[in-house]
């Protein structure tokens, strides 16, 4: 979580039984990008957020949320 965004990508990825590398491969980005998204260092574009949500079978709001919402 960063100060401006709550990230739950890691929980959903692990629930889906995927490694960072496997998820990265499936959505077409580098493993490091998945890692920095999970750590709240990098905020993904809308397109990538939608791709991640589609692959993890959840909504974008499940993966990312504003603090205090």
């Amino acid at each position: 979580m960063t100060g401006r965004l709550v990230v739950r990508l890691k929980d959903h990825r692990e629930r889906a039984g995927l490694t960072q590398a496997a998820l990265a491969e499936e959505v077409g980005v580098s493993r490091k990008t998945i890692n920095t998204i999970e750590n709240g260092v990098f905020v993904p574009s809308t397109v990538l957020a939608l791709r991640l949500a589609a692959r993890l079978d959840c909504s974008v709001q499940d993966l990312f949320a504003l603090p205090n919402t």
Partner: protein
Amino acid sequence: MLYVTLRLLFHCNEARPTMSGNPISLVRFWGNAVLVVVVVVAIAGMMLSPAYWTGWPWVIGAVAMGYAALSLAVHLRFPDKAGAAWDEQNLAAHRASLAFGYWATLAAFLLLLGAVWADLIDPGAAFFWLSPVLGIAPAVHYLASVLRNRAE
């Protein structure tokens, strides 16, 4: 020494930089690293003994062209890896490195302009010294992004 330093950095925990398995990213990283090292060695060599050897610009040019050719070759050989190598985080780091290169070159230009006005350096030499900054500033910034885990 650079190799040992990078190895130490890469083989630590998850929070530390990790070496990519993507051949395009690998060539980009090592191409930038070699370019930076060659330019730094050239600058040091030219500063220590300017009249000793004047072939450094050719060496820098050859390394840069070799890196470009190698980069083209791996893009053609591994087209399926290009998307991940140039994903949105890497593109953001690449754009940031170009912006850094612009400001670094502008700063170096102003510094050298002052030196020319103060008669500390010949205008031709000042123009010559501008090129290494223009050449390696983006590469230095990109390497820093990789080592900070902001790119690969």
